[in-house]
């Protein structure tokens, strides 16, 4: 014990485990394809290097995908030192916990001790640096529990140093270091082992030999090893078992033995070995108990500094649903990063969309919304999928038509989640009550109205995509009442209309919602001044067979039209959302607005472009496929509108369902309420307003 007082005890820096993410991917694959339910230990490899640059860095023992392969050596690189490891992957967390850790590490210790006794480790010192890895892979949650051990024999139990370890830099000249480096390189190319003996001959300089030569060398000799530590005073873990080997075979050489902790760093083409340490052993202390095999320790401490396992959650990089989520987001971010830095993707992603109608338009609109990153989509429809649907309606397949057909709303909602599990989609099987459709079961209809009103209230944007005109009245009115943004798409045979309704604050009796037009206005109309789908009509919605507007002829359309209109509808919504004014974004009423989008973009100081990074935010888009032409009319809200006028909203606010019931049974009452009836008396005829192509659009 006196020696202990006069010298310093050598302390070793344990390995710190470093697991490459590819290791977990490979382990998952092996578990599924090879190990299955087997929890027998299997051989793997790991590696460490002796080229650490910063003294803050731990001594890393790395495992990666090549740990499972034989050709690991090619991957560890110039300064990589391979280590043998044993992997035991358990099937349950309980089994992971229940493994007797002490006997597991003792078993490994026995193996090392045996290699020391037989001299095998003298010929191949890498047998001394082994590791154990216990894992439990919870592949449902992508959680991995693991615990490393770096077994080391407590033999001798203490090493007493003569003095503080010294760096080579401070002891040798540049020339001497260079010569040592050459000697090492020569040894490495011929022998390649991680532990060696350095002979220092006064005349011939340094020469490196295999470890077993220690017995034959009488000159000043050092024992060298590749040191993963970069601490200025502490060697790395591999030295511990190496000293056990030397103690067993060359006990007499221990006192006064110098150990070279070889650190070999390359940075920017400059090789540095000067931070290698030289340690001189003064004495050793042997274990007090007399046992056949020295004690073994080396379980790695966890992040709390205690002996214990660790867990890592890899759902971010392994869970396919999360991967899909981030891939979708990243794809959209490309647009932001590359083209439109001012694009606000969050506002799009967080928008809740209600799609009224799950037919051709509904399916394409939903798909385009998904492509924009919208996650929350609800369908309302009361139809069933029929045999003619799947070819045009992109969310259905043949099997949805069987057995009378699936309910469309529900089927479309399910389909969205199948396409992308990140979707929050819902289907509501509901028939939208309509003016002129006589109410037979008043209670049922009142419930439907409430369901629809609740649905509109819960969403941010309402898409009107039904196939009749009168089915759009109630949602138009309710959306105006609740102050929601409405996007409307309607198709003719080869024509389409896509528009946004003027968006105002939710109905508030104290506030003036809209005024009578003061006549022709110059310049842009702001969003709240814009009309709705019904503002341009001078008759109340009713029996659709009488109507002849382009969107009502029937559902016989050129198939490409619905894709075009759906695409435009979603793009219009996104343009509105990107506009700083949102639903109040201005639309133009000047003739310039009736040109093509391309012409618009060519005008650099066009007012419409200034607001939204995506360009003009039109009020409506009318397209004519037979001429491949598109116009962007903007119209003011009509004071006598049957859907959005304050007169109608006020009446609904006051009377609620009683008013609606009246409308459903007798649509003419709408004309009375809105004042249209009076207007009819005043004006004999009204000319069509904003429809420059009307002469050519034959019915």
């Amino acid at each position, binding site marked *: 014990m006196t020696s202990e007082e006069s010298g310093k005890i050598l302390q070793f820096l344990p390995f710190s485990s470093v*697991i490459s993410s590819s290791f977990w*991917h490979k382990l998952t694959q092996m578990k599924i394809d090879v190990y299955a339910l087997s929890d027998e230990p299997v051989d793997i490899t790991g590696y460490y290097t002796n080229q650490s640059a910063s003294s803050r860095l731990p001594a890393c023992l790395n495992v990666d*995908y090549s740990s499972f392969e034989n050709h690991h050596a090619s991957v560890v690189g110039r300064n990589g030192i391979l280590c043998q490891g044993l992997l035991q992957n358990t099937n349950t967390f309980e089994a992971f916990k229940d493994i007797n850790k002490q006997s597991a590490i003792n078993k490994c210790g026995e193996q090392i001790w045996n290699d020391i006794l037989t001299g095998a480790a003298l010929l191949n010192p890498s047998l001394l640096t082994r590791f154990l890895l216990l894992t439990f892979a919870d592949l449902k949650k992508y959680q991995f529990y693991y615990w490393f051990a770096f077994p080391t024999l407590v033999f001798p139990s203490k*090493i007493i140093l003569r003095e503080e370890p010294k760096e080579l830099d401070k002891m040798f000249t540049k020339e001497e270091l260079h010569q040592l480096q050459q000697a090492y390189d020569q040894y490495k190319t011929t022998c390649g082992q991680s532990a060696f003996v350095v002979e220092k001959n006064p005349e011939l300089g340094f020469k490196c030999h295999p470890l077993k030569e220690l017995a034959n060398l009488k000159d000043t000799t050092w024992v060298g090893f590749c040191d993963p530590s970069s601490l200025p005073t502490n060697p790395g873990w591999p030295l511990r078992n190496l000293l056990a080997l030397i103690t067993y075979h060359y006990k007499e050489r221990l006192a006064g033995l110098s150990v070279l902790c070889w650190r070999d760093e390359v940075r920017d083409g400059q090789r540095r070995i000067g931070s290698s340490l030289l340690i001189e052993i003064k004495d050793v202390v042997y274990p007090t108990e007399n046992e056949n095999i020295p004690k073994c320790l080396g379980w790695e401490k966890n992040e709390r500094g205690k*002996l214990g396992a660790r867990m*890592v959650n890899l759902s*971010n990089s392994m869970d396919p649903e999360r991967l899909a989520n981030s891939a979708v987001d990243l794809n959209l971010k490309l647009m932001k*990063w590359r083209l439109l830095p001012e694009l606000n993707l969050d506002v799009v992603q967080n928008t809740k969309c209600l799609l009224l109608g799950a037919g051709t338009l509904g399916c394409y609109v939903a798909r385009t919304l998904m492509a924009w990153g919208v996650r929350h989509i609800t369908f309302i429809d009361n139809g069933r999928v029929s045999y003619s649907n799947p070819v045009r309606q992109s969310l259905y397949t043949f099997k949805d038509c069987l057995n009378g057909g699936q309910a469309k709303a529900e089927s479309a909602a399910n389909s969205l989640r199948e396409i992308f599990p990140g979707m929050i989609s819902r289907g509501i099987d509901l028939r939208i009550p309509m003016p002129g459709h006589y109410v037979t079961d008043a209670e049922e209809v009142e419930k439907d109205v409430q369901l629809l009103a609740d649905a509109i209230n819960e969403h941010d944007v309402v898409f009107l995509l039904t196939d009749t005109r009168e089915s759009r009245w109630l949602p138009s009115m309710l959306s105006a009442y609740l102050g929601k943004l409405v996007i409307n798409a309607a198709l003719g045979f080869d024509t389409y209309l896509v528009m946004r309704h003027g968006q105002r604050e939710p109905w508030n009796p104290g506030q003036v919602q809209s005024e009578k037009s003061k006549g022709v206005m110059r310049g842009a109309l702001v969003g709240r001044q814009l009309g709705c789908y019904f503002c341009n009509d001078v008759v109340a919605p009713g029996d659709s067979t009488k109507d002849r507007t382009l969107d009502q002829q029937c559902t016989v359309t050129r198939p490409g039209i619905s894709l075009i209109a759906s695409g435009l509808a979603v793009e219009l919504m996104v343009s509105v959302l990107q506009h700083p004014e949102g639903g109040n974004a201005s639309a133009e009423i000047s003739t310039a607005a009736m040109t093509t989008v391309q012409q618009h973009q060519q005008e650099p100081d066009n007012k419409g472009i200034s607001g939204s990074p995506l360009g003009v935010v039109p009020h409506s888009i009318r397209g004519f496929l037979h001429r491949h032409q598109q116009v962007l009319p903007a119209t003011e809200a009509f004071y006598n509108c049957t859907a959005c006028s304050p007169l109608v909203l006020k009446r609904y606010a006051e009377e609620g369902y009683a008013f609606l019931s009246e409308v459903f049974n007798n649509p003419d009452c709408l004309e009375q309420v809105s004042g249209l009836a009076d207007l009819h008396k005043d004006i004999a005829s009204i000319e069509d307003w904003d429809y420059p192509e009307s002469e050519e659009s034959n019915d």
Partner: protein
Amino acid sequence: MGNITWEEFVVGVRHVLAVSDSIGDGWHVRGSLEEHGGGYLAKRMDYPVAIGEPSERTAEDATIDHDSVTEPYENDPCSIDPDSSFRPVYGEFHVLYSLAHAVPTLYLRAWRRDGSCLEAQELWRGLTAAERRPSSDESERLRSLTQQEHPFLGEPWYHLHPCRTADLMDQIAGNDVDRVDAKRYFIRWMSTVAPLVGCPVSHHYASFR
């Protein structure tokens, strides 16, 4: 000249391998260069960087203490504890040939000690030193890291999207009217792109014998 063929790519790769072998910075080939599009250049991050925040935690604690373990020396007097405040991040760089764009493409991935991966934002923050952070528009666009399944490994990696590489290489070539050989192209590309993501390229690569 913005594009290169696979054969030219291989010439570039072999140049990197030759130089790397002499300076020891760890570039090596995986797969086979003999096969068209069959191999790629790989390198581990030289030195782990200390940018890692603790990996994402689930509700339960990620570490499990085993009181049952009775090691002979719970407090081993002959070992010192590693500095646990230091949270290094490790990474790997791969250079693949993009068949679609006919340009080299840089793939990378970085992970914490436990194997959990860094997200794109963390990668940028951590790997790009402030002075290396690109300021021009072109470099800004170049920065877009996108997640992409690694064509050889089938795991999600990040890559610098190759769609603008050809333009970039044209711009770098500038007034250089002579046809730039494959080695020069490769090194120009690497020394422009790799440092952006924390992969330094030694000046030794610029000497072409």
